[in-house]
């Protein structure tokens, strides 16, 4: 468990943020560019000195402003992967991987083996190469391996995919997923792309202008109005998590989410796997009576929690689908009036299975 509470002033910018990250699992630091995400990462890594606050990993205090305690970055044992890979150009891939591994203090627990990392990140064929002979995605994979082999107690990933194009990002993301599932260390993942967060993280810390404005389970943060303001109306949508109940022979997986069953397109899923999906608010249709004769695969019984005005002439309807699971639907104000939507009204929510894309998490979230 990582616990952070930090203050730092840099010119006009003031950071005053706090959050915690569980072990294992990925906690996403999410926010607009310039909200202080990278500053926060530098402070935790020890590359910048906070003005005040505390950084604690498990029982170990790394920084305590009140006691004037600050462990040097090189003794913190925090693995950092930056936006740019920062591989050492004069060393081979092997040399880069060994750099941190050779400097692990004696007596430190070693939970990552060289072979594990090379296998997991697919580096076997690259070991003899020099950094300038690698593609962008390969470089970043080596950077992950180098950080892991320093046997860190915490992994900080500062927008590690931001310097890659879309195709390269898709190529690297699966490696990040397996890395997350393979090692029992807390990972803090900085991003301003919500789709990355959705694929990797189970907890989200929302930063805005240097302050933590939300901190919690991804499902809860996905409904937070502050997040909506950051991602824009078209990307608003409740994040749901559930387990694969059964696999449909037609290639659809049936997820149990709250009291509802959702059909989701999901390749390579297995029964009982934990799945995270985002249901975009613009993809949800609300009906006052159960419709028949529609192509839509998912018809879910729901109860209106609230109706709030949204951008344009739209309203955002929050729907309870049982056991604290919630959907968001973005519909026109006119439609809402015609249906007579108000709190506690029983309705049906319609979601096309083809609009849902599930992300597999093999380690259950805590």
């Amino acid at each position, binding site marked *: 468990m990582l616990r952070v509470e930090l203050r730092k002033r840099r010119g006009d910018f003031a950071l005053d943020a706090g959050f915690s990250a569980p072990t294992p699992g990925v906690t996403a630091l999410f926010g607009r560019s310039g909200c202080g995400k990278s500053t926060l990462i530098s402070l935790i890594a020890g590359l910048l000195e906070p003005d005040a606050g505390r950084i604690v990993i498990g029982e170990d205090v790394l920084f305590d402003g009140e006691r004037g305690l600050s462990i040097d970055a*090189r003794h913190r044992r925090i693995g950092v992967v930056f936006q740019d890979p920062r591989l050492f*150009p004069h060393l081979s891939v092997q040399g880069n991987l060994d750099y941190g591994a050779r400097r692990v203090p004696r007596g430190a627990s070693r939970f990552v083996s060289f072979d594990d990392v090379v296998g997991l990140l697919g580096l076997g064929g690259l070991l003899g190469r*020099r950094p300038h002979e690698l593609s962008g995605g390969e470089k970043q994979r080596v950077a992950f391996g180098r950080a892991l082999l320093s046997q860190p107690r915490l992994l900080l990933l500062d927008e590690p995919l931001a310097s890659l194009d879309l195709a390269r990002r898709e190529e690297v993301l699966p490696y990040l997923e397996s890395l997350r599932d393979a090692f029992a260390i807390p990972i803090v993942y900085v991003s301003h792309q919500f789709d990355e967060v959705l694929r990797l993280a189970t907890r989200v810390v929302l930063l805005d202008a240097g302050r933590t404005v939300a901190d919690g389970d991804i499902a809860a943060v996905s409904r937070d109005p502050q997040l909506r303001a950051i991602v824009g109306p078209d990307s608003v949508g409740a994040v749901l998590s559930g387990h694969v109940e059964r696999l449909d022979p037609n290639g659809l997986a049936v997820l149990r989410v709250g009291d509802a069953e959702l059909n989701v397109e999901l390749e390579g899923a297995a029964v009982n796997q934990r799945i995270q999906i985002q249901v975009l608010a613009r993809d949800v249709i609300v009906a006052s009576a159960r419709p028949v004769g529609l192509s839509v695969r998912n018809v879910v019984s729901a109860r209106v929690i609230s109706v709030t005005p949204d951008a344009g002439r739209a309203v955002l309807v929050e729907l309870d689908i049982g056991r604290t699971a919630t959907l968001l639907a973005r519909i026109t104000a006119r439609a809402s009036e015609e249906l007579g939507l108000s709190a506690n009204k029983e309705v049906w929510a319609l979601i096309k299975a083809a609009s849902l894309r599930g992300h597999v998490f093999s380690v259950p979230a805590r």
Partner: protein
Amino acid sequence: MLSPAESEALWLSLSVAARAVVINLPFAVMVAWLLTRKRFAGRTLFDAFVHLPLVLPPVVVGYLLLVLFGVRGPIGGWLHEQFGIQLAFTSNGAALATAVMSFPLVVRAIRISLENVDSRLEEAARTLGAGAFDRFTSITLPLIAPGILAGAITAFAAGLGEFGAVITFAANVPGETRTLPLALYTALQTPDGDTLAARLAILSLSLGLAGLLVSELLSRALRRRLGR
């Protein structure tokens, strides 16, 4: 091919220039690092001081060395009393004078490559558990190796031809401080020395050219190793 006096001057030149480079390098790396990485009071003045040998008449440098390192000078006197070391009028003195003259060249070459080292690499090394000295030797030094090499070879080539500071501080002693340019000068002062002077001039020219070529080839090879 070469007369005994010629080869003596040649070997002495090579030896003096090599010794000058050895004296130079550790200090030049230190000074270049200070000038690129540290901000301190009097930095600009220090920078100017380091570059003085480039603009001063070599005779002035030789004279200052004589004042400081002469047998009765504050440093030279102490060295003589404590260790019995004499610099003035010896080949070691010639090496010191050559070193001082070529020092700015070496600092410059190293400084340029230090400025090109991405300090974020050192930051990454720090998060991987490397201390300050470790970072310098494992990251910074290998990355500035081409600059150090270029500086060393340029200094060596320039050192072969150092005249003013050497003759002022170390005089023109055959077999001890009479390097190629001094031998050439002596030949010019001697009746019938024209042929010798021409031979020595051609020798100096070839040496200088070879030095510069080797420098270029080596730094190209090193850059290729670093993938630039």
